[in-house]
Structure formats: structure tokens, C-alpha cells
């Protein structure tokens, strides 16, 4: 089975984020980036399917220069080749335009199955994979916790709210968005890192993808980013660890009456 994994580079989880000068996003110059967590699970799932069934794993990202690092990491883990959608015209795309560019790349790669993470931890749209499926006119399913491959179809376990699940049979080609926890992602080995150096990493701009300006037009726009207002109901307990421990024990006993 030929698979494509769409992944995104996002600020590292423990990065200290500060707003940019015009408060439209965060400053990116002094933060480190990593692969979006659910996307790591999506990549792992593709690698496992390949190990079971044979086939190819193409990784695909849309992002600036730095995003090539995410692709290299994916190649080191075992992906076969990479597509980097990189063009000045790709700055600040919304989910719709991102999906449109990805769809153009996916058509070139012509996989049977596309896997993405269920959402990106930066903008949190939770939409790109689903829109991609619509643009390709493929079936899709979201928040997937298990994949079983069958002849020209898949059986997937979709997570529902409150600990419920559902098995769904979905024909190929298809797009699945993967939930964190579906598997145990591997680490890249030294051998993998060395092998990655010779794997193809293709760079594609809007012309190579056959896109025009019209198709990249945003449909939504962030006008301002701000720190959420605090409701201020919390009572802060301060002091040395011993002092806060004493204070909390006292509060729990005499105020909250829970001990």
C-alpha cells in the first residue's frame, strides 16, 4: 500500500511563547520546533502498515525552511521520501488553502491512503485532513485509534466521546486523521539518520503544484492574538515547599473540609 503522511512542525510543547510585535501570532525566531504530536502517531502508523504489507511512505509538509527538519526526522524514522511544500506564497495559509496545496501534492504522489494527525497543537483547527479528503473526493474518518488493513478497504476504530468507540469499514483511497495514543512511536536510529541523508526530499512551490493565487486566497484571518483574560478566582499559595504544603493542608482541612 502506498501511503502519504501529512505532518506539521509546531512550537515545542515546553517552548515559552511570546506574542509577535503586532500581536497576530507568536514570535517564531526564538522558539524550537518539533513535529506536531498526533502527526508523529500518524507517521508511526504508516510505518507499521508498510512493515506489515509492504509499500511506500511519503511524508509531506507545508511550511517554511525550518519545516524541512520535520521531514528529515520522518525520513530517519523510516519514511521513503519527502515532499516539502515551500513557497513565499504559502505564508499564513488557513486550513482551506493548506488543504488545497496538500491536495495538489497528494495528487502527484498518488497514494492509496493519507494519514494526518487529528489537529495541530498551534492553530488547533482540526480540519486540514478532512478538507483534504473533500478536495480529493475521497472518503475519510477522524480520531482513529486502530487500523486494520483489508483488501482495498480498511477497518478503522474511531474514537467517540466518553470512552466509546466504533469500527468503520472505509474503502480506499481514503484520508484518516489519527489520534494520539494509537501506537508507541519509535525513535530514529543512528542507522536511520544516516540512511535519511540519501533519501529524496523534493521541494515544491505553488507553480510546481499547479496552483494559482486564487486557490490560496484565505477564507479566514486572525486579526489579533492575546493572552486569555484570567477570571482570578484562584487563591495562590506561596512560600517554600514546606510552607505551601502546610498552607494547603490547613486549607483542605479547615476551609474545604476535605480531609
Amino acid at each position: 500500500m502506498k501511503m502519504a503522511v501529512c505532518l506539521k512542525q509546531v512550537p515545542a510543547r515546553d517552548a515559552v511563547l511570546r506574542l509577535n510585535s503586532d500581536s497576530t501570532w507568536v514570535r517564531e525566531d526564538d522558539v524550537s520546533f518539533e513535529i506536531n504530536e498526533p502527526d508523529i502517531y500518524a507517521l508511526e502508523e504508516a510505518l507499521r502498515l508498510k512493515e506489515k504489507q509492504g509499500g511506500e511512505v511519503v511524508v509531506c509538509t507545508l511550511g517554511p525552511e525550518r519545516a524541512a527538519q520535520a521531514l528529515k526526522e520522518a525520513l530517519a524514522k523510516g519514511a521513503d521520501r519527502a515532499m516539502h511544500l515551500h513557497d513565499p506564497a504559502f505564508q499564513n495559509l488557513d486550513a482551506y488553502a493548506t488543504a488545497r496545496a496538500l491536495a495538489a501534492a497528494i495528487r502527484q504522489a498518488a497514494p492509496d491512503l493519507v494519514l494526518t494527525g487529528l489537529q495541530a497543537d498551534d492553530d488547533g483547527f482540526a480540519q486540514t485532513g478532512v478538507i483534504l479528503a473533500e478536495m480529493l473526493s475521497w472518503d475519510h474518518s477522524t480520531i482513529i485509534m486502530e487500523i486494520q488493513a483489508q483488501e482495498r478497504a480498511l477497518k478503522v476504530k474511531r474514537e467517540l466521546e466518553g470512552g466509546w468507540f466504533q469500527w468503520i469499514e472505509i474503502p480506499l483511497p481514503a484520508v484518516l486523521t489519527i489520534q494520539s495514543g494509537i501506537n508507541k512511536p519509535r525513535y530514529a536510529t543512528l542507522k536511520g539518520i544516516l540512511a535519511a541523508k540519501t533519501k529524496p526530499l523534493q521541494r515544491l512551490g505553488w507553480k510546481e503544484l499547479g496552483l494559482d493565487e486564487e486557490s490560496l486566497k484565505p477564507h479566514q484571518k486572525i486579526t489579533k492574538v492575546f493572552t486569555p483574560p484570567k477570571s482570578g478566582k484562584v487563591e495562590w499559595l506561596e512560600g517554600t515547599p514546606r510552607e505551601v504544603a502546610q498552607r494547603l493542608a490547613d486549607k483542605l482541612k479547615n476551609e474545604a473540609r476535605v480531609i
Partner: protein
Amino acid sequence: MAAGILVFAEHHQGKPTRAAWEALAAGQRLAADLGLSLTAIALGVELSPLMAELARAKLDEVIALESPALEVYTPEGFTSAVFQLIEARQPRLIIFSHTYQARDFAPRLAARCGRALISDCLSYRREDERLILIRPVFQGKFCAETEFMGEPPYFVSFQAGSFREDSVEAGAAPARVTCQAVTLAAGTIRTRPGEVFREAKQAVDLSQAKAIVAVGRGIKGPENLELARKLAEALGAELGASRPICDNGWLSMDRQIGSSGQTVAPNLYLALGISGAIQHLVGMKGSRTVVAINKDKEAPIFEVATYGIVGDLFEIVPPLIEEIIKAKSG
């Protein structure tokens, strides 16, 4: 009637879900603020009782889109059916609650219309003709004001709890009910959904716990769980966790608290190294007293905390265990 607002009312076997009422509450507020008509829609079979229930709310119309093909949810079926209605009615705004079902098909529906969905919104603001939606970014560390570009229809989904289900206004008279049979082109639905189920093993029922010590990724590794366990023991509490702890297999899935785990409401909820993502908060915000210990003062968990301690849990928990044992015996 002037093109207005459509609210997607999710239901479970013919009963509107909480998410449906929350979406309707959002729709009522927006309809009043923007001067638009309000219509609720539901999809399935034999929807008359559901229609009657929805029609009691203050709105102009409720529409049932009925077809045997819509009895069980599929993204293709729901996308096609609502798309047909949008073409016929030309609404300006379509509102969803940001549920698993809306996540599954609303982006596809919006894309089919060639329009945007602004997802997971917390609130909105109107500035003259501009509709500004406020949504979390960076897992709630920041909020972003977001606006639509281009022509309507516009699609919006609101996060659980953004509007209160009990704020839905009742109507003076029942709203008009329209039942519409939907025909889907042959071959529209290609996926085959099975029965919904729970994993068989549910050994722990945290919903009844009086006290819970919940650990998050701040606990670093499974070897440190012993520390949390000792604290739980001192408090007579159950051990719970955020999702990544269960994903990693450090604790079993039935200890997971949140939208995809258990919903709890103990007298005491003590969160150790949990950031407080919305999917976690929805599972525990009914707790009476919430203590949060986190080294990041900006962590969203402090928004729902009664007592907040900014610091390293590994420094605070050991003396805390001693002090609790002391306080209990004193």
C-alpha cells in the same frame, strides 16, 4: 424569509444532546445580535418527537432532514444532506458545537461550499458589520480573534461549555416544523459504520470517587507515579490521569479523565503537572475543590483551580504528604 442562521442539532437516538442545546443557545444570541432568522436542523429518521422538543425553543423553524440513509451517522451522508439544504436555503451562518461528530463532517461541508469553518470558538463579538470570533490557539495558552474573508455562508463551531444549555430561551409559541425527505445519490455513502461500543474492561469507576489525585505529563515518567500514589493514599483518594499518561500505558485507560475518558465530580481534585487542556477540563470542572500544582503560572488549569501552587511538584508533594498525614491526625 431572509437568509438566516442554521443550527445543527446533534441528537442521540432522537434526544437532543447537550451540545445541541449549547449550539442553539449560541444561535439564539447570534440571531438576536445580527438580526437574522434562526432555524435548527436535525438529521435521521422518525424525528417528530425531536422536532417537537426543539420547536419549544425560541426560533423560527425546525427542519428534519429524514432518510433511512441518515439513520446512522456517516460523514458523506450528513455532508450531502446538509449541503442540499444550504443550497436551497442560502443561510448566512451555520452553527455547530465542536463535538466529535462536527469535527468529522463540518470541515467537509464547509469545504464543499468553498467556505471556511472557524472551529472550536469560545465566544464572538460584533463590531459594526464585522463578526469576530474568539478561539483558543496553542492549546489554550492564547486566544485569537478570527474573522471570515469573502462571501457567506460562514461556518462556526463553538467549544463545549461556551454557551450554557440552560440559557436556551423558550419560544412564545412552538416554531414551525418542516419535515423534508432527503434523497442521496446512489453510492454517496461508501463507509460502513458498525455498532458503538466501550472497551470491555472498566475496572475503575472514578465518577463516584470523593477525592482524586490526577497526574499529568509533569510527572515525567512511570517511576514517579509512586509519589502520586502516596499522596493519594494520604488523602484517601483515587488516582486519575490526563490522557498522555494513559496513552503511554503508565496508567490504565479507565483512569483517564476528560472528554474521551471519565467525567468526575469529586469533593477534592488535586492536579499534579496537568496543563488543563479543554479536553481534560470538561471531565473534571464539576469538582468542588480543585488544587493545581504546576510549574507554569500561565497553565490553563489554574483557571478552574480553587487553590493554586506554582512550583515543582517533585519539591512540593513530599512535604505535602507529611503535612496531610499530620493534619489528619491532629
